[in-house]
Every structure is written in C-alpha cells, then in structure tokens.
C-alpha cells in the first residue's frame, strides 16, 4: 500500500456489515471506522459478536455482506489471503497455534506483507519465554506462552493494521503490562490497531475510542475523554 493511500482518510471503514454462521445471523449491520494510527477497541458482553466482527474483516466468515474497506479498497468479496496481503495482521481469540509446527516455525510461518516488521531478536526480547521454548512444539506451550506466540507471530510480518482478539487473556499481569507497552510503542510508530477486549482496565489505557457492541450491532461509541464521565454507562454495558 502506498503512503498516500494511508494518509487520506480512514484505514478501515466498515458499513452495514452483516454476517452469518450457518443460519444464525450474528452480525446485524455493523458500522465503524478507524483512522490511520488509531487504537480503537470493541467492547461488549460475551457473545455480542466482537470476535465475529474481526473474523468478518479477515474474510473468515462464510457469509457476509455490506462493505469493508481497507485502505481505500473494498474487500467484502476478497478471500482471506488477499486481505492479509494488504497489510493486516490478525491475532485470533483461540490463538491458533499450530500443533504441527514448533515455536520457531510458528513464528516464521506468516509471510511478510509489508516493510518494517520486527526482527526475530526483537521479538525474543519482548517475550523471553519464546526464546527458551523455541524448539518446543507449538501447542505444548503453556496457555500464556501460546498467547505470546500468537501476538509475536504477526509482529514480524510488517502488517500496519492489527486485529487483536483478547490479546491479554490468560497472561500474567507482568506480561499484560509488556504488551500494553508494546501496543503503545506501535501506536507511536503509526500502526493502526483494532482491539477486542474483556479487560476494560487494559483497554481503557490504550484506546482512543471504544465501540460498544450488543447483539451484533454497534450501539455506542465512547471517546477516550468521556470514559471517566461515562463510567456508569460503561459498567451497564459490560454488566459489571
């Protein structure tokens, strides 16, 4: 993608997105928009459709309609590999570590989709566990290590837009902290991040804006500045 395309307008723009699993109509007209360099979260209760939204963006849903625009390009009909090649990095909720590959192979699997991805050394510095276990079979890692691997894997590829689905699940606080720092750094470097999080405390410190999702729709949007004043509303959305 050219720099000019990134600069003018939004990096990701979704309009009236519908998505189905078999017969069940999960996404019922999602619309959202993220500008380049923004960190935006989607929050909402279990089953609201957050994961499904990310999967739809990646082209992993069998049936979807509406519009998904990545860097000015309509991708609603594109296969996943085409979308990824535009510079999109995806960390799935279920982590998607390959059992048939060892840790290094897992790391090296995704091909580069852009310039400036992290070097293996940098990644190992961020997640020392992975260095130590690099010969281990992917799924033999502990739960948290798998999560680290899933994140590390896309940092290498040079993607500019990241879709992170609950990246802190199952991670020790100290690692969560590291990941937060990493995301902050990425933000400074101009990466764009769409984050799905249950851990609102974590999301709160990172995000420019929060979209609230309920039953397959975006029902609200709260800017960073309003989080403090709107905490009651947020708590109601999250059922705290």
């Amino acid at each position, binding site marked *: 993608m050219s720099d000019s395309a990134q600069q003018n307008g939004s990096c990701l723009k979704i309009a009236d997105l519908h998505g189905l699993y078999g017969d069940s109509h999960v996404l019922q007209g999602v619309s959202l928009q993220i500008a380049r360099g923004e960190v935006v979260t989607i929050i909402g209760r279990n089953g609201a459709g957050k994961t499904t939204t990310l999967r739809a963006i990646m082209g992993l849903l069998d049936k979807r309609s509406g519009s998904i625009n990545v860097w000015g390009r309509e991708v609603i009909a594109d296969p996943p590999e085409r979308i990824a090649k535009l510079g999109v990095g995806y960390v799935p909720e279920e982590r998607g570590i390959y059992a048939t*590959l060892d840790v290094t192979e897992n790391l090296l699997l995704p091909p580069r989709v852009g310039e400036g991805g992290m070097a293996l050394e940098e990644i190992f510095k961020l997640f020392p566990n992975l260095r130590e276990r690099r010969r281990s079979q992917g799924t033999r890692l502990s739960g948290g290590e798998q999560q680290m691997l899933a994140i590390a894997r896309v940092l290498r590829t040079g993607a500019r837009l990241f879709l992170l689905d609950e990246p802190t699940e199952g991670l020790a606080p100290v690692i969560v902290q590291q990941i937060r720092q990493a995301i902050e750094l990425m933000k400074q470097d101009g990466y764009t991040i769409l984050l799905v999080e249950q851990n609102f405390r974590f999301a709160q410190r990172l995000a420019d804006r929060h979209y609230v999702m309920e039953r397959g729709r975006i029902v609200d949007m709260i800017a960073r500045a309003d989080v403090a004043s709107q905490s009651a509303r947020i708590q109601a959305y999250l059922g705290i």
Partner: protein
Amino acid sequence: MSLEILMGQVVVGLINGSFYALLSLGFAVIFGLLGIINVAQGTFYMLGAFGSWMLLNYAGIGYWPALILSPLIAGAVGVVLEKTLIARVYKLEHIYGLLLTYGLMMFIQGMFVYWFATAGRPYPVPLELRGGFDLGILFLPKYRGWVVVASVFFCFATWFAIEKTSLGRTLRAATENPQLTRAFGINVPALLTFGFGAGVALAGFAGVLAAPIYSVSPLMGGELVITVFAVVVVGGMGSILSAIVTGLSLGVVEGLTKVFYPPGANMVIFVIMFIVLLIKPAGLFGRER
C-alpha cells in the same frame, strides 16, 4: 547360508526398499501435509507405469522422456482430482479422505480393467541400462542400480524441499488450520493442490521406474498401498525422512525374511508394525503429539 549370499540379500532388500521409500514418500507427503490418507497412491503408481507404456506404444516416446512426462501427467491427474474432489474433504475427519480415495481407487482401477483387461504389458528396459555388474556377492542388474540411485536422489530432494525450505511448514500449517493460514496471507487452496499433485507425481515416478521390472497391469498397485501404509506407520506418520529410512530398512527386513521364513514375507511388515505401535505408538521416528 554363507555370509556372501546374506550380503547379496541385503543389497537386494535395499533395492526393493528404495521402491518402498519412494512410494511411502509420496504417501507421507500427502498424508503429512494434507491429512489425506491416500489409498489411491497405488493406483497413481499404476497410472505412472501405464502412462509410460502408453507413451511408448501410442506416441513412440521412450523411457527417458517418459520418466519426466509420465509423472507430470499423473501429477496433472492428481491436480484435477484435488481441485474437483479432494479439496472438498480437507475440513472433514481424516476418514473421509481415506474413503474418497478408496472410491477413486476402485473407480480408476475398475475403468482400467474394463479398458485394458488385466493382462500384463511389456515395457523394455532402456538399452543403456541392460546387463549388469558382477559385484562378487551378487550380480547386480544395471537397471536395479539405477532404480536405487534415482529413488534415493528423489527421496532426498523431496526431503530437502519439505524440511529445509519453508514449503513444508507452510503446507503443514495449511492443513492443520487452513482458514487461519489464509488469514496470514497464504494462498492455501493453491498450495494444497500443489502438494497433492506432487505426492501423486512421486507415485507416478515410482510407477515409471517399476514398469521395466514388473509387468504393467491395471492391478499392479492395488495391494501395494497396504504395505506403504505399514511403512509410514512404522516410521512415524507425516515425517518425510522417516518414510525414507523406514522404507529402505523394511525392504531389507522383508528381503531377509524371504531367506529365513519365505512364506512370512508378506506378514513381516505387519508384525513389525504391530510391535512398533505397541512400544512406540508414534512410530520409530515420529514425535508423539
């Protein structure tokens, strides 16, 4: 039995083992990388042999060009089958791949019997490779020597392509979780098609190598696949190098059985497989998952 004769038998076993290795390799590629138990592997072997026979008889194309053409044709058949049929069962349990290829095997073999009947057909040994060397311990036909060289070369080339380049890991990932792999920007469908085609082409190659030694007939590959099954299981499923090594060693073991207890030659591989599975369930070289 003199030591010399025994050594001769070991050499002969190795020759036969290199066939097993080549066949198991194609099988292991398709199984290890695509998760399809390709029962039709023997049928593709037959296609390779028949292909070279047809090239010779209908087009006058000789052994050496056929050695390249026939596997390519078999591979192309594999590609078409993959695109139209096999691609639909990846996401299902392994057993559906097995059944689909079982059906294919019945169909292809049945049609060949229908068209060509079951009589064997001659395929001459190429002129350059007639005769043999006297190694002292045994008389080694040149053609058999060539078979060993060619299979070992191809085995290691394949091993290299799969284990030492990113191809193997990408293929494995593509089978394990195709959707996610696509989401990383890898064109999985094309890759799987290629993997299947390559595995089939290997079988076709083995078929061409076999054509001058065994009679070319529609039934030539039918039972072979069970032995190949066993080789792959003993070695450890999915591992390329182990398919090669196990293929070679089981060839030797089988050869020696033919000396010490000839009627047991068919069974010995299964007995070994049974014992191995008891002691090392993942196979001799397989990683336990």
